[in-house]
């Protein structure tokens, strides 16, 4: 018989659960789910070694274990702390945690440019959610924020260093998914920044996954840049048979009408890429950046979006369209339209396909199509 796996009993926010020894407090809380799970900005379950950088996942340990029930003196990072038998953890039930988390949000936003109206990540940004749920209004920071020029890292990825929170997730992607990492963190402390060594292009097949793991808008998709706001595009699940080894081919397409504006990996409830057959569903750059037609994909259906997310605006569940009765009441005649909006409107012209331009649109694109 197989050796019995040792399980520990842990109580998080008054809910008790049995988890295998060696599980982190964060993962135990995620098994309970909902509000009990602390937010995580740097930990990413699919990237080994991630976590421990951002401190958003701080929790209070009210009792260390049954053997030693003393509370831990300081708040601990739940993504790096493993459970002990009889441990009692307080997350949202602890005022200390709430206060500390608001402080962490303030720290993460110290140098942040707050340029959400421009940023393509807005609407699916973990920092926005974190600030909204756990942050305070206003900042006490009085010094100049650090600034950087935006940088193209490779033909597909744009780096806005000002928005980076130095979570290191992208460097783990480069280390663990691609064979040669050419970018990393340069300098230290206040001066630390993500960069490529002398702006060397990242041309690995899986580099696009950095965009998905980046919790903020620091790494964004250049092929989607400024094309649309995420909440005006409609996410659908789709797949294709991809022959790149390691690519799962299961994606989310972000559509506007029949145009594919963006392709991303499929995300789970924690905002991480979903697993398929126990393997993380990373996708290759061909799927992500080059298959921008609906004919390239088999569409499975509309992606389930949390209804509290702005992305769910305009997407109605169980929508039943009423039957078109105009022809019936008019004896088979077509209604005479007094105006076709496309004759007059300059926006969303049927002949202009923003999704087919390689990078962001510029003034000349619109000049030509007047």
């Amino acid at each position, binding site marked *: 018989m197989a050796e019995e796996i040792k399980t520990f009993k842990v109580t998080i926010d008054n809910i008790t659960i049995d988890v295998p020894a060696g599980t982190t407090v964060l993962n135990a809380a995620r098994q309970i789910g909902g509000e009990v799970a602390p937010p995580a900005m740097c930990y990413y379950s699919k990237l080994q070694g991630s976590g421990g950088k951002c401190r958003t996942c701080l929790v209070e340990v009210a009792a260390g274990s049954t053997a030693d029930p003393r509370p831990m003196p300081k708040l601990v990072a739940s993504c790096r702390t493993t459970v002990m038998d009889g441990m009692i953890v307080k997350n949202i039930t602890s005022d200390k945690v709430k206060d500390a988390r608001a402080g962490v949000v303030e720290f993460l936003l110290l140098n942040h440019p707050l*340029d*959400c*109206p*421009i940023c393509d990540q*807005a609407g699916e940004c973990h920092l926005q959610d974190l600030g909204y749920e756990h942050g305070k209004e206003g900042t006490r920071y009085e010094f100049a924020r650090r600034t950087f020029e*935006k940088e193209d890292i490779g033909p597909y990825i744009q780096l806005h260093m000002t928005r980076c929170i130095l979570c290191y997730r992208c460097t783990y992607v480069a280390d663990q998914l691609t064979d040669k990492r050419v970018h990393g963190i340069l300098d230290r402390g206040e001066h630390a920044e993500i960069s490529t060594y002398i702006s060397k292009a990242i041309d690995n097949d899986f580099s696009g996954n950095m965009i998905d793991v980046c919790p903020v808008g620091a790494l964004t998709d250049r092929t989607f*840049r*400024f*094309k*649309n*706001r995420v*909440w*005006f595009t409609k996410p659908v699940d789709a797949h294709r048979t991809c022959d790149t080894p390691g690519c799962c081919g299961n994606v989310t397409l972000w559509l506007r009408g029949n145009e594919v504006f963006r392709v991303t990996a499929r995300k789970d409830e924690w905002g991480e890429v979903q697993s398929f057959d126990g393997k993380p569903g990373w996708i290759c750059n061909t799927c992500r950046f080059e298959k921008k037609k609906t004919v390239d994909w088999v569409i499975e259906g509309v992606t389930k979006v949390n209804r509290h997310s*702005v992305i769910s*605006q305009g997407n109605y569940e169980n929508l039943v369209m009423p039957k078109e009765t105009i022809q019936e009441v008019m004896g088979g005649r077509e209604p005479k339209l*007094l*105006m076709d*909006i496309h*004759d*007059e*409107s*300059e*926006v*969303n012209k049927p002949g202009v396909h*923003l999704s087919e331009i390689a*990078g*962001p*649109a*510029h*003034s000349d*694109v*619109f000049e030509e199509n007047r």
Partner: protein
Amino acid sequence: MRSLSKAQIITYMQALTNRAKQVERKPMTLLERAYLPAIFKGMAITFGHMFKKRPTINYPEVKRPFSPVFRGLHILNRDEEGRENCTACGLCAVACPAEAITMEAAERKAGEENLYREEKYAAKYEINMLRCIFCGLCEEACPKDAIYLSETFAPANFQRKGFIYGKDDLLIPNPITEPEAFAEARGNRAQVAR
């Protein structure tokens, strides 16, 4: 067919309120039948109004002052250097209950810094005034001080296409190149202190 009494009809019709009154059908008195006294009574009311203050004005020669919270035609704002404020963030469009606003964004090129304040701007921006209900939610939503509802009506038009307002129609005149037009569009209402 069986005829119903009035009271029966009222119960049958299920009056919505308890204020329904039965019409009195008493025969008229002599004074009422004389007809002229009632005419004079009515005329007295009519002529009496001639000496009261008129509630109407002679539009368009005279115009009413707008209330400070009047919500009219939109303008797209510029900053003091004449650059467009709007960054095509789409918040007005998502806030709009009538789905009247559409836009397409573009990236600012080198050399266009004097035209657009931000790295991204609205290359196309349209409001369908036929859909708009002038609720002002777009103005509330805008994080960039870029859209305001002014004290102007959308002028009447014979055709629907006249109500699709593009950027040419919406942008406020440039304060650097056309200061007079800008001052006029800006109006003279005291700036609300923030």
